[in-house]
């Protein structure tokens, strides 16, 4: 970019920015590039619409791209009412959660023929945003740029362009994860690369990064927030860092409502970081707090107002998921959240029951089935995954990593004691996210009993903490073995990613389709369970 014609102030700023970028380690750019390449690979591998809710997310972006307007929230009618071109793709790919896309060359030719027909099929319908229309518009406005760049192409060309734009967000997320680790573990530069690459090759993250989904923007925002908070604690709170943190929050909230979950932790973090700033810089730190508040608050409030006044959408369009339904009970919510992670206590109603002897609703062990198995790899519309033995193996690896990270915390307990406000902030951020997802999950269940809402992807805004645990684990292995462990973990992540892609290729382009199984009646018990139950019943009999 030529700066010759730019005014002096702008030129100085650009030069400062360049100098700052040049000071960053080369590894950060490479990690981001590799994350981008991997996410693009996923985007080309996964069939159209197979990222969760991708049809409506694409529909929202398409509507903005075509009209420049934010779609109205659907209150009645079908969940998804696409414009003609998206409708052709949807029906001729064809979309199916359980099935596979067409394997027929003739149908493929027909699909492209219909999309490229003259005149081109229409591309505008507000209903294309479907049930995603309640989301804030920032992610979709960003995607609309890619949509318009690829506008000379047909619907599927624009679709892939939007996926690639998402991959760019995945790359930026890894960039901020690297920055976060740099602030968190300043004395171990190689661990930054290890942690960032563990994220770049984490299959669920890369799968999401290769799809059109506003989750990608809050992964970026969450990682930027972590990096900003870590910077505030390490270098002291300043107006610049305040703007950074506030911008991360604003971008996240304007991307997806679940970012609200991170606000309490961020507020505590900003205040604690200001409190920990040396006394002589306290005034500046207070300026940082103010900057964070204003940078986050003005766009968020502005959006909530504009949502209602300009776009004629109720403010609840953004915050509706937090409103309590009529059957909402705090006691039941507590019980639900408790049982999501821990065994049921005697006085609690069973929130994840066996529906009938031998048959149970999904999930019965939610922490394991939803979050652990989901993180190891559950793809598509939370539909297909690795064989169960891989999940057990993955659990072993995750537990080992956690154990080593715990060992590192014990070894460096003096630093942990010194940095407790920072660790508390990370814990609050993560807890806030867990709680909000569970709160929405509980509300979802009130309307759809025993249906599952939670998915591992909802936790990825805090993917930076996963990177931190991986990096810490390498520290836990000691100075001698740490780098080797780091290299091994990156290799494992690469293998994990590769096998997830093979699993995906087999799922969509080779393997048997999944029949729809409806649970109208009990599934047969396993043999062991049937025996155990018979024994129990025999005992009970008079």
């Amino acid at each position: 970019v030529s700066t010759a014609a730019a005014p002096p102030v702008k030129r100085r700023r650009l030069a400062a920015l360049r100098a700052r970028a040049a000071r960053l380690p080369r590894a950060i750019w490479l990690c981001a590039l590799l994350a981008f390449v991997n996410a693009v690979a996923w985007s080309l591998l996964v069939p159209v619409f197979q990222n969760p809710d991708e049809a409506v997310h694409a529909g929202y972006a398409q509507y903005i791209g075509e009209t420049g307007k934010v779609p109205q929230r659907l209150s009645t009618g079908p969940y998804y009412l696409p414009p003609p071109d998206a409708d052709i793709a949807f029906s001729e790919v064809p979309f199916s959660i359980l099935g596979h896309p067409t394997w027929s060359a003739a149908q493929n030719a027909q699909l492209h023929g219909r999309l490229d027909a003259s005149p081109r099929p229409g591309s505008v319908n507000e209903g294309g945003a479907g049930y995603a229309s309640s989301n804030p518009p920032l992610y979709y406005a960003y995607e609309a740029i890619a949509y318009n760049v690829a506008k000379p192409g047909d619907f599927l060309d624009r679709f892939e362009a939007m996926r690639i734009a998402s991959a760019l967000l995945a790359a930026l997320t890894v960039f901020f994860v690297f920055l976060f680790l740099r602030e968190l573990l300043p004395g171990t530069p190689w661990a930054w690369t290890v942690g960032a690459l563990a994220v770049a090759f984490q299959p669920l993250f890369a799968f999401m990064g290769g799809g059109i989904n506003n989750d990608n923007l809050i992964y970026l925002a969450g990682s930027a927030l972590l990096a900003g908070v870590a910077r505030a604690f390490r270098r002291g709170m300043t107006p610049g860092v305040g703007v950074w943190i506030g911008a991360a929050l604003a971008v996240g909230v304007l991307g997806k409502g679940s970012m609200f979950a991170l606000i309490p932790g961020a507020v505590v973090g900003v205040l604690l970081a200001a409190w920990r700033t040396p006394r002589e810089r306290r005034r500046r730190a207070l300026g940082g707090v103010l900057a964070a508040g204003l940078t986050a608050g003005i766009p968020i409030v502005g959006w909530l107002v504009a949502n209602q006044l300009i776009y004629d959408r109720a403010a609840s369009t953004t915050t509706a998921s937090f409103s309590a339904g009529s059957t909402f009970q705090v006691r039941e919510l507590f019980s639900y959240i408790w049982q999501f992670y821990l065994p049921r206590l005697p006085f609690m109603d069973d929130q994840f029951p066996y529906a009938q002897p031998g048959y149970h609703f999904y999930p019965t062990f939610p922490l394991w089935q939803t979050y652990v198995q989901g993180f190891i790899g559950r793809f598509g519309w939370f539909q297909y995954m690795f064989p169960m033995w891989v999940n057990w193996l993955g659990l072993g690896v995750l537990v080992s990593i956690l154990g080593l990270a715990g060992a590192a915390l014990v070894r460096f307990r003096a630093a942990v004691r010194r940095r407790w406000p920072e660790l508390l902030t990370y814990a609050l951020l993560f807890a806030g996210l867990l709680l909000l997802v569970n709160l929405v999950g509980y509300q979802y269940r009130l309307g759809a009993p025993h249906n599952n809402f939670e998915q591992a992807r909802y936790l990825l805004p805090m993917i930076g903490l996963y990177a931190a645990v991986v990096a810490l684990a390498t520290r836990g292995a000691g100075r001698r073995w740490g780098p080797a462990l780091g290299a091994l973990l990156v290799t494992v992540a690469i293998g994990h990613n590769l096998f997830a892609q093979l699993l995906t290729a087999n799922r969509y382009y080779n393997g048997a389709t999944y029949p729809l199984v409806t649970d109208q009646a009990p599934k047969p018990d396993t043999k062991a369970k049937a025996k155990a139950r018979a024994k129990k019943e025999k005992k009970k009999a008079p």
Partner: protein
Amino acid sequence: VTRVRAAIAVGLALIGVALLVTLLHREEPFVGDNGREIELPAFVVIPAGEQACQPEGAIPDGAGTARITVSTDYKPAGPLTVSVVRDGTTLGSGVIAAGIEDQAARVRVGSGVGGARDVQVCVRNNGSRRVSVAGQEVPFGSGAHVTDPRQPQTRAMRIDWFEAGKATRLSRAGVIARRAGYAKASWVGTWTFWAVLALVLAASAAALALVLRETRRAVET
């Protein structure tokens, strides 16, 4: 640095072995299904010595092996004979050996059934125990007719079809690459799958080189 190299080598060796096992695994390639769902407990019940026959408009091209999900109430059952019949002529048949127990069972019925139209698929229970085949409720006449009139006659079996012969997953790579190019952006084709594979492998190699470089730098400083 030696330890780092060794760790990468161990990791790559593990990946290599797992890849070989995965890609050289042999199985009958999937060709299609009969579109029936599985509704619990709407299974087609076939008592000992009885038979269930259901109409199928078309068997997918290339099919030679059928898969049905059989419930046996935790006890070994069978044998079951699966046959494909058109106008009284058996186009192909096979036997699921005795000893099946609550499982999805595959049976080779011969490649002569692939592409056949307006046929009956029959499952005869030659064993001494009752079995149930997973399926769904359907209107009377469109589902399986069970020779024992006391059994429900408004259910249809779910049948998955596979090729008759086994093939390694590796040998399916060309088919996968072709299918992966369908229903995507106009510039995507069979080549894209190979390009994606190359991209992922290159990115993986670059990541390992980066880790090696960073850890070496740490040792040197």
